[in-house]
């Protein structure tokens, strides 16, 4: 599975419908993901990929694609910037 597929799998594991999780979908407006759900997704991604997503980055996640890009970026540098 590539990074995008894994991010979608993690989000499905948290309880979201995989069919809706296209890159351009907006987390709040389109998918109705609230702030506590978003932080659970972030922690789930950290645990799945073994990365650290900076708390500052959380507020910048608007779409599913933003999450995929962030994970991809952190994996490409080998390690995430820990909080």
């Amino acid at each position, binding site marked *: 599975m590539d990074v995008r597929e894994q991010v979608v799998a993690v989000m499905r594991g948290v309880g979201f419908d995989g069919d809706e999780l296209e890159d351009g979908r907006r987390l709040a407006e389109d998918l109705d993901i609230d702030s*506590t759900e978003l*932080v*659970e997704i*972030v*922690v789930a991604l950290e645990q799945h990929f073994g990365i650290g997503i900076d*708390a500052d980055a*959380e*507020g910048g996640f608007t779409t599913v694609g933003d999450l995929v890009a962030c994970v991809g970026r952190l994996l490409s540098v080998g390690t995430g910037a820990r909080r």
Partner: protein
Amino acid sequence: MIAEALRDVPAAVRGIGIDVVDVQRLRAMLERRGQPLYDRLFTPAEQALCEGGSPRHRAYRLAGRIAAKEAVRKTLGGHGLGCGWRDIEIGRAVSGQPVPRVSGRAEEAFRRASFTGLHLSITHEAGLAVAIALAV
């Protein structure tokens, strides 16, 4: 004369925020993700304040703090964009009253919004935690 008259006028409300949290939903999230999720959402002081009692009561206290943080963040409106969960800490006065403390990005937003104080109230009932915050 004007200053004397103004002394008795309540401070103007500059911002208002309200939030509701489903206690069981938050509890399930925390159980699924464990300490990393606690550490993202709560400061060490908040975690210490919520310790003790039954798991149910602990979940209510934690949910009340989440609702309170969101309510405070909402008082900041657009100024509050980017505020992290731990930038707003919900302490407790000796009387039991919740006491919000802002730091980091929330403190900067608080200054940009020209707020001078925050008032906060939390309640729990029927599986929900509700908080309302007023900024002056």
